[in-house]
């Protein structure tokens, strides 16, 4: 085994973004016929490294060799020419184009005079779909496909040329356990056919199940390269975080439910085209309780939260926040009634990127007359901001810094500082720890639990099952706009919830 | 001209009376009365030894006209301030009292006070002759082979403003005087700056049967005359001699002799004969307004008939209606 040249060798790859060195002299070897896992915390540099390989970014230093030959990858098309295909962390598909058009975008099959050869593209997609057993309809528009199907389109695209090395960046993040299993089946097929696979994932159990070897990055550096057979999940976690970890996962305890605080009855929501996204949903969250909503992204969770927060107008139904009817009213109504909303889309709805931290926080407290009336008193405004910055541990040079300059975790803490400092009766949050590292995640979770214990009703929407399982007192599963299952009392297994998320009966 | 800037009037050289500034309410190059006035200035410079410094301004910048007028008026090395255009009259009325010792000449508008002389033009009289010619054209396809004898003539104007109305009433009266059965199609393009729109409008008028279209639309009129050529009918030009723009298609031009009248006023000023506070009227009798035929198009007998009409106007036998006052 040692004398065969690796399929891919990356040597001393370095990539800087201004003062930040995202990838710092990293080496990576991938052999034909293996699944190679690439691990690391958020922001460790995994995607950046793979973007350098795929030509989406140019490394500042380092060398890439394919089967021993140094190559220059100056763009995705060059990568495909060298036999490298990539499935991106965030889907990079054009919604209104067909599957075939997406698959060949950038390397179209052409006829004379710059005209597209649609027939040839369609035929090739059908052939690939057949060969790898990945079912897709070449003529379907991508926007009409489910997330899983879009994932398959991404994979077909990665394979559309003669690919020898396939990179998958967090392909399982949006998949149910069942879909993940199917994907792994496919990957095993590739490996058997002699392809090399690079897999990026945060799910260590998956990694242990499918990968042959693993490379771990921390703060842009390679800190370990191991054979999976030689390590276990716990050891991998320690390598990733860089310190010893307790063996147990965090246990948050249970709440003691009181009176209903958030009541949703018969909620219907349609999108602008009239498609029903939520079909008659009922839901109650009591004081002192965290209700978790599990579901594959796109099954109406976002719309549910938006309807409660007043951002989306429901077609029918009732929403009561602390007894006040808010359905169809502006966000202000719900806020006045005592709602706090930590939105999924942090940078568009959660904070004002071009405003200073002060404004971002103070805007939640404008009803506070002690800030000065009619004119705001700048000194008092700043004092309030500083107090909350300290209480919520937002790490920022001074309160005049623009929210844009905050890192993800600090930005989220700033959002919490605004929303939770109002002592809300109902807290609705959607993916509150997306993109946060372990310390920040724990801070956010603790805040939620403390407010629950204080007597707030918390609705937590997340596609991360472990988060829901560890925090929620009660779990609801949403599928195609309906609640299809509820777990109270004993914690269910991931697999049980996963079945419901896919629409299978429990 | 070699009169250098700022030469004090007293220190010999040129007396202040020979230094003139002309802050205008528009730009040169309008192929119309600004250019015509400028010809008058130039002739005065060569013939009379005066200097005329022209200051242009944007056509939509009334504050700048006032500014330029004041700048010119306050200089004591300037003997006469020249300006022109109906639009600038109210500005002059405001400015001139502040400079009682300065003398102003305004063309195309009446005098605005005891220290200004005005020159106005009887455009209605010129338009009257144009109307008469238009009526003859549509009545006599035998003499004007491009006409269809439709008994329909047109006037295409820019904006509907008082001066233009003055043209219109004169034109209509001219047509009716020759033949009351000829109908007049009057249309506006809405502005003075769109030759293409002038072309489109006039083309439509020709398609609707007009044998001849008289343009009173400033730069827009260039398109109107072009339409006459494209349609193979006749156009009548305005303000300056436009007969050569499309030889064979422009039967005549009604001319406002801004150049001559302005030149004459400057000459009178240098001779000490320009009376302040009075308004000179350029009309058919003093050739301040006249009609210039294209002899290749308009036969001598028609020219003669129109000459008779002109005589009747100057004799006072015919009074041409006016839309002003």
């Amino acid at each position, binding site marked *: 085994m040692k004398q065969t040249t690796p399929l891919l060798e990356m040597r001393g790859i370095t990539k800087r973004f201004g003062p930040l060195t995202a990838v710092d002299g990293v080496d990576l070897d991938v052999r034909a016929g293996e699944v190679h896992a690439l691990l690391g915390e958020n922001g460790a540099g995994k995607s950046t490294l793979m973007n350098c390989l795929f030509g989406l970014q140019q490394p500042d230093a380092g060398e890439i060799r394919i089967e021993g030959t140094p190559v220059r990858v100056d763009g995705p098309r060059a990568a495909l020419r060298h036999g490298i295909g990539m499935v991106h962390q965030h889907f990079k598909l054009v919604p209104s184009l067909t599957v075939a058009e997406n698959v060949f975008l950038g390397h179209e099959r052409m006829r004379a005079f710059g005209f597209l050869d649609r027939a040839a593209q369609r035929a090739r997609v059908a052939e690939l779909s057949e060969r790898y057993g990945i079912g897709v309809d070449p003529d379907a528009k991508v926007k009409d496909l489910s997330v899983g199907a879009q994932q398959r389109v991404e994979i077909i695209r990665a394979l559309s040329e003669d690919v020898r090395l396939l990179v998958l960046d967090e392909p399982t993040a949006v998949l149910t356990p069942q879909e993940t299993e199917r994907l792994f089946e496919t990957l095993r097929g590739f490996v058997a056919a002699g392809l090399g696979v690079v897999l990026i994932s945060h799910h260590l159990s998956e990694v242990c199940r499918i990968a042959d070897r693993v490379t771990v990055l921390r703060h842009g550096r390679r800190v370990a390269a191991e054979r999976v057979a030689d390590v276990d999940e716990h050891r991998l976690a320690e390598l990733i975080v860089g310190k010893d970890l307790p063996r147990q996962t965090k246990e948050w305890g249970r709440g003691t439910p009181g009176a209903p605080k958030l009541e949703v009855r018969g909620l219907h929501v349609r999108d602008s085209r009239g498609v029903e996204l939520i079909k008659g949903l009922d839901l109650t969250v009591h004081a002192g309780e965290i209700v978790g909503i599990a579901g594959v992204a796109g099954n109406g969770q976002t719309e549910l939260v938006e309807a409660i*927060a007043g*951002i989306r107008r429901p077609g029918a139904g009732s929403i009561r926040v602390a007894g006040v009817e808010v359905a169809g009213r*502006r*966000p*202000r109504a719900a*806020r006045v009634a005592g709602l706090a*909303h930590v*939105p999924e889309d942090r940078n*568009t*709805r*959660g904070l*004002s990127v*071009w*405003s*200073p931290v002060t*404004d971002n926080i103070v805007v*939640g407290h*404008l009803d506070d007359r002690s800030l000065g009336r009619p*004119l*705001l008193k*700048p000194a008092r405004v*700043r004092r309030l901001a500083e107090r909350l910055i300290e209480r919520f541990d937002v790490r920022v*040079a*001074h*309160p*005049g810094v623009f929210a844009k300059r905050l890192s993800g975790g600090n930005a989220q803490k700033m959002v919490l500082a605004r929303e939770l400092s109002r002592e809300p009766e109902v807290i609705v949050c959607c993916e509150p720890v997306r993109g946060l590292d372990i310390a920040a995640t724990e801070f956010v979770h603790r805040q939620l639990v403390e407010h629950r214990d204080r007597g707030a009703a918390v609705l937590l929407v997340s596609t991360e099952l472990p988060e829901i399982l560890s925090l929620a007192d009660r779990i609801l599963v949403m599928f195609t706009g309906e609640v299809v299952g509820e777990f109270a009392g004993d914690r269910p297994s991931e697999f049980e919830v996963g079945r419901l998320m896919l629409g299978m009966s429990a | 001209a070699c009169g250098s*800037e700022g030469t004090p009037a007293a220190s010999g050289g040129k007396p202040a009376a020979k230094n003139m*500034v002309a802050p205008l309410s528009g730009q040169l190059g309008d192929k119309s009365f600004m250019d015509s006035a400028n010809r008058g200035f130039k002739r005065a410079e060569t013939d009379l030894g005066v200097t005329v*410094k022209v*200051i*242009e301004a*944007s*056509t*939509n*910048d*009334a*504050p*700048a006209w*006032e*500014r*330029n007028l*004041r*700048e010119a008026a*306050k200089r004591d090395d300037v003997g006469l301030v020249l300006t022109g255009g*109906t*639009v600038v*009259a*109210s*500005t002059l*009325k405001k400015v001139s009292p*502040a400079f009682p010792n300065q003398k102003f000449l305004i063309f*195309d*508008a009446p005098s605005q006070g005891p220290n200004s002389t005005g020159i106005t033009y009887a455009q209605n009289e010129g338009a009257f002759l144009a109307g008469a010619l238009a009526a003859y054209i549509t009545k006599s396809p035998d003499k004007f082979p491009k006409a269809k004898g439709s008994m329909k003539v047109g006037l295409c104007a820019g*904006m*509907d*403003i*008082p*001066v233009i109305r003055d043209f219109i009433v004169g034109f209509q009266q001219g047509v009716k005087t020759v033949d009351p059965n000829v109908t007049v199609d009057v249309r506006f393009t809405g502005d003075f700056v769109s030759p293409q729109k002038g072309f489109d409008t006039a083309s439509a008028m020709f398609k609707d049967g007009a044998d001849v279209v008289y343009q009173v639309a400033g730069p827009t009129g260039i398109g109107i005359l072009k339409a006459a050529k494209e349609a193979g009918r006749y156009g009548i030009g305005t303000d300056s001699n436009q007969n050569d723009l499309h030889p064979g298609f422009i039967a005549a031009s009604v001319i406002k002799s801004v150049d001559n009248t302005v030149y004459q006023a400057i000459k009178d000023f240098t001779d000490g004969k320009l009376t302040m506070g009075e308004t000179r009227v350029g009309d058919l009798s003093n050739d301040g307004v006249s009609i210039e035929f294209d002899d290749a198009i308009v036969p001598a007998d028609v020219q003669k008939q129109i000459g008779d009409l002109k005589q009747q106007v100057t004799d006072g036998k015919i009074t041409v209606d006016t839309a*002003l*006052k």
Partner: protein
Amino acid sequence: MTDTTAPAASPARARLSALRPSPGLRQSLIAIALGLLASLIIIAVIADEPMAAFRAFALGSFEDVYSFGTMLSIATILAITGLSSAIGFKAGAFNIGGEGQLYAGGLTAAVVALYMPGPGPVVMVTALVAAAVVGAAWIAIPALLRVYFGVTEIVTTLMSTYIAIDVTTYLVKAYFKDPQSGALETPPIPQETWLPGILSPSNANYGLFLAVLLAGAMALFLARTRLGLRLRLVGLQPSFAENVGIASDRTLLGGMLTSGALAGLAGGVAILGLTHNFIDSFSPQFGFLGITVALIGRLSPFGVLAAAVLYGSLMTGATSMQSVSDVPFALVFILQGLLILLITSQGIRRRGAM
């Protein structure tokens, strides 16, 4: 300017850094320098005596009281239209129809001044208020379409400008024409309704104080009031503002109506302070220039004042340049285009500042 919050760090350093021009101001200054350099080059190519021409262009309005006052009278209008654009931008709307609102407001002011009985000052104030109201009314349709139906205000406000010019022309012709005049204009308004003049004989007038007052009020509004904070947040990121309970639609509507009102008011000030009657050529694009002035002033109210003075001096300078050279007025438009590009450039900023 309204966004600065004193750093919590050492007070001495804070004071020092306050003396340094802020990066935004620095970019404006660099842009102005580059713009003037470009003008100098153009002048050098065209003019026979480039230095005299450039001198007249850059300094022409600071030579004597009259020129200075004239410049201020122009700057007054530009400041108000600049504030109009700035409040629109701050609220997140692009009102390029200031010119139309200015026409509507101008005619309104003239008509009120002509026909309303009563003591001069009362008529004057009523005329200005009416001008502002009509200015706001003139933007109402584009504003409602933008806010409630997502129709781009860029096209609709521009189109409403053309309409305003046609409609005011028609109204003057049909109802308010001066019978004494051959031009299409209203009679001169009574002298007691004029905005009182300063720096005689120039046209500078009390409108200047009004502009300064408005700038101060707007600065206070944006920096110190709750509504001002809400408006800024809506302008920067409507989806965020909505989410934190601000009615982004009503706020935006209010911002656009205010923008229209200010442009209308500017028209009123131009009539009562500058031309003293309504004639369709009363505005050398005052409304449109407001956009440039607002951008040069970086949307800060006092920045707008400074930019208005700068711009006013360029406009009067360009006129006086014409009397000493043959450089056309067109230079101002070129300079204006260049300034906007240089000032709003993010590419230059990245290298230059920070």
